[in-house]
């Protein structure tokens, strides 16, 4: 019974995605929405990404220095582990989990409200493919800006680590620099960017599905918003396991 229920939901999600990925009726209108969504979902998230990445970078560096560094370990170990954690997991997976909360609830509540106030019905009556008009610019906007967010996150995390060295004097800046440059593999950077593209698709399409299919009133919009965040977070974690295995 539960399997049937989840298969039904998956089927409905795939049908919605089928409708979403159709050629926009008016490219001019699509690009207008696309620019707006890039600003709303991507540019408006830069602040929180920078803030969290800076402090997480700093905290990881301090933790590594306090708990890993020992006389038997090389001096560069704190910088090295900080870089690897930021690059491999934090900037892509954890940052996307955070964005799932911000962007996911935003998309689900926006589309849910449009559904219950009949704005989506109004689009359908006009003969507009509402799924494509509303959802496609969000997905494309997030996919476009996600590499920037991941890059900013990694860079700001490293800045946070340097802050602990220069301002907090937790470790010598030279040791941190040596660690950050030690055995650097550019592929890890690409891996992070590839993973983030999958996560960007999840954190836009899943909340869009939750919001678009809302039935009822404001209580259901709230529920859809919560479901969107929970479901996209779980899917990010699951796909992270597979993607890490696949790309490593």
């Amino acid at each position, binding site marked *: 019974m539960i399997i049937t229920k989840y298969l039904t939901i998956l089927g409905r999600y795939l049908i919605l995605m089928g409708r979403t990925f159709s050629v926009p*009726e008016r490219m*001019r209108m699509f690009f207008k929405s696309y620019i707006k969504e890039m600003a709303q979902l991507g540019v408006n998230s830069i602040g929180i990404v920078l803030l969290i990445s800076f402090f997480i970078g700093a905290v990881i560096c301090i933790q590594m220095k306090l708990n890993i560094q020992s006389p038997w370990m090389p001096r560069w170990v704190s910088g090295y582990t900080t870089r690897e954690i930021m690059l491999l997991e934090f900037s892509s997976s954890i940052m996307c989990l955070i964005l799932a909360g911000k962007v996911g609830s935003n998309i689900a509540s926006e589309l849910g409200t449009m559904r219950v*106030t009949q*704005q989506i019905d*109004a689009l*359908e*009556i*006009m*003969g507009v*493919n509402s799924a494509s008009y509303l959802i496609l610019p969000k997905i494309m906007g997030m996919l476009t800006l996600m590499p920037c967010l991941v890059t900013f996150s990694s860079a700001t995390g490293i800045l946070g680590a340097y802050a602990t060295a220069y301002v907090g004097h937790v470790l010598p800046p030279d040791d941190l620099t040596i660690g950050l440059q030690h055995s650097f593999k550019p592929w890890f950077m690409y891996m992070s960017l590839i993973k983030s593209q999958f996560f960007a698709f999840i954190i836009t399409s899943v909340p869009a599905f939750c919001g678009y299919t809302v039935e009822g009133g404001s209580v259901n919009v709230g529920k859809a918003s919560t479901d969107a965040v929970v479901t996209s977070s779980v899917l990010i974690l699951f796909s992270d396991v597979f993607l890490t295995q696949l790309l490593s």
Partner: protein
Amino acid sequence: MIEVKNLYKSFEDKDVLKDINTVFEDGKTNLIIGQSGSGKTVLMKNLVGLLDPTSGQVLYDGRDFVAMSKSEKVHMRREMGMIFQSAALFDSLTVLENVMFPLDMFSTMNLRERTKRAMDCLERVNLHGAEEKFPGEISGGMQKRVAIARAIALNPKYLFCDEPNSGLDPKTSLVIDDLLQDITREYNMTTIINTHDMNSVMGIGENIIFIYEGHKEWQGVSSQIMHSDNTRLTDFIFASDLLKNMRQLVLEKEADPFATAPLDPSRHG
């Protein structure tokens, strides 16, 4: 002209619409009336294709909308305008952008022509000066007028209004009713209005369909309601004691124009 033939609609085991047969005429304000839960909104959603009927036909000038392919329906919908109960204006767009939206999507006009057309529509609904406001900044009556302007922007052949007077004061309701009637005549549209408002029924009802528990109970014009012997209809229209007494008075007056008998006090609520 829209013709409905043998229309049935069921939700699981509940029959909401049963064998609806009716005609909505061109250039007239066609009203669908009935109690809450009688199936009016479901009928309208079947007419515009937001719901698919369980069986039956909806013929737009002889073309069966139910049997049309998806692309034919999309094309057909460009000939329809709809005013929702909640106005359903796009929150993120200004009044002018809302009215321009269907033009932006479907017309081949340039920006200047689209803006002019949208301004003309706003002028038509007496909303000049509110172009740059957002839906949240204007009153309910103004929102309904913006919705009318948006609905007529592409010169639709068919206009659907789901409870256009809901939540409006009686005076604003009259303005909306007059506007809908004028626009219907001006553009020779087939206008279908789903309403509870008895002022609308008596004022602009040129073809009235009364739905009772999912079936068509009565069809006629507003002038026939007063003399109808259909008790379900008269009980619905003249629901309050005041209206019952007024009807009684009118009927008595018509029967004996010289009678001066006062209203029976026992009939007052």
